[in-house]
């Protein structure tokens, strides 16, 4: 069964076609990779799915049986789509635990008026949310930093927090935009382990945009390749790495067979 079905998705910025007629299906429970050179439209694809931009007529995005084409971001989020941003966009002026609690906003159930009157149920709900978020922080290894302002965290910790905040919404679909960017190889491994553990524990479906080929090849069962806003290939990692067009798209020139082999070995 497909959790996400995209048909004919297009996006233009002025005269520039960032995405042209993308079809994409993501199976329930899959870890699906999206690769492609810089500027090929990967982040734009996430922005379309999560409702940041309005899609063009003729585009259709169906999530979990619901047509979400053109719905506002917060509604899509509440249906179970969580994402991270390439630039992270964590709430730097808030503490780590507050970042997590904003992530849980859609599942926090009490009225502001009840909060003003200091109703007991509000206090117990706050305690529940805090405890659940602490548990999640524990899982991603940030529990010690719960009260620290997020702006004080290191790069690797910020990436983990961005992941944690997305997970705080208990999503069905988790979309990660270049989660490994700027991380050392060890930290990439830690992050990947965390993603895999989360995926298994919560039965998630994950889409990963990644630049680091190795990361995608090791983790994903299906990989889609974008170039100039078009999907040029799709298949298992093995199929993709045998595809000349993919590697040429990456390196921006034609290559001989030996070169391709070398590249794959080094990547």
């Amino acid at each position, binding site marked *: 069964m497909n959790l996400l079905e995209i048909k004919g998705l297009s996006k233009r910025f002025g005269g520039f076609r960032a995405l042209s007629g993308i079809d994409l299906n993501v199976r329930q429970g899959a870890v699906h990779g999206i690769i492609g050179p810089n500027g090929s439209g990967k982040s734009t694809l996430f922005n379309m799915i999560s409702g*940041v931009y309005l899609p063009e007529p003729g585009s259709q995005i169906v999530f979990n049986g619901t047509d979400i084409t053109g719905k506002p971001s*917060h509604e899509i989020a509440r249906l179970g789509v969580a994402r991270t*941003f390439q630039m992270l966009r*964590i709430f730097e002026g808030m503490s780590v635990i507050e970042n997590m*609690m904003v992530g849980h*906003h859609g599942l926090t159930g009490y009225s502001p008026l009840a909060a003003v009157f200091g109703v007991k149920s509000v206090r117990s709900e706050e305690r529940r949310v805090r405890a659940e978020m602490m548990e999640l922080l524990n899982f991603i290894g940030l529990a010690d*930093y719960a009260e*620290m302002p997020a702006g004080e965290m290191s790069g690797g910790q910020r990436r983990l927090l961005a992941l944690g905040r997305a997970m705080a919404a208990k999503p069905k679909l988790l979309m990660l935009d270049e989660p490994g960017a700027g991380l050392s190889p060890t930290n990439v491994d830690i992050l990947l382990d965390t993603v895999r553990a989360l995926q298994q524990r919560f039965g998630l479906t994950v889409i990963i945009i990644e630049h680091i080929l190795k990361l995608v090849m090791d983790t994903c069962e299906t990989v889609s390749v974008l170039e100039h806003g078009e999907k040029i290939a799709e298949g298992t990692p093995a199929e993709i790495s045998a595809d000349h067009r993919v590697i040429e798209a990456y390196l921006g020139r034609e290559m001989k067979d030996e070169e391709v082999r070398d590249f794959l070995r080094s990547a």
Partner: protein
Amino acid sequence: MHPVLPWLGGIAVLSFLPLITRTAYDQYLLNVIAINVVLAVGLNIVKGFAGQVTVGHVAVMAIGAYASAVFSVHLGLPFWLALPAAMAVCAGVGLLVGIPALRLEGAYLALATLGLAESVRIVISGTEWLGAAMGFEGIPPPHIGGFVMETHFRYYFVVMPIAVMGIYISFAILRSDMGRAFKAIREDQLAAAASGVHVAKFKLIAFVLSALYAGCAGSLKAHMAPGYLNPNDYSLQEMVTLLLMVIFGGIGHIWGAVIGAIAVTIINDLTQDYYTYRMAIFGGVIVLTVMYMPRGIGGMIEDFWVRKRFAALRAATKARQAAP
């Protein structure tokens, strides 16, 4: 323990404050401070929590003050009904002020709200039944049965508890899910929306909440002796003074806004004789604060506290990063 109990304790303690004042003028000043606390704490919700620009807050206060005056003088409502009615009017105004905020940001939003602020003052100045430029006179003080709160001493026991409750409500909101939604909007709207926060809805709520505070402050000002309103008390200069309270106190810090309101009201009073220079000084202090102490007194206190608390943790993190 119910969270409101400590605040009731605070009201009890503050009830003794007028006893150490020497003159009726001191008592008047206490009341002005309380009203400015309401105003500043309210502005802090929209500006400090939700991060929205507005320079129209004083105009909303003016609308609250004149609405309350009209309700009590022309419609004969007692203060206790005129106050909530004026606040309701201001809630509607807050909604209207908030709508441009859904499309505009930063300087453009400042210009839009500035336009509103000045036009309110000009319309009042030209409207006969609002007293026009001569001002609105004869607004009755509150009373309970035959007990009339016409002295500043008595009025203190109306404004002070309201100010304390205003601070309490502001804290209750900040610490709730809604307060976090406000702050998330201030920090990053895109990420807030991706977390399920209905950005437009909460922006409007923030404007309405702060307008409720402004309306309350306006009504309190209207019914304070001598029960007189003048449109010139709601000029741009008052807005600069109000901004100073919130910025100097520390944007986004409730206690900062309270401290700012107290400090600026007292300084404002002490420098009355230097009226012509005051605005230049206030403007200068705002610029200097924004440049060198952008998070105000509240931010400085918080930084100090955070630094102490997390010094060890941060050192450990640094050491780990430095290690290969």
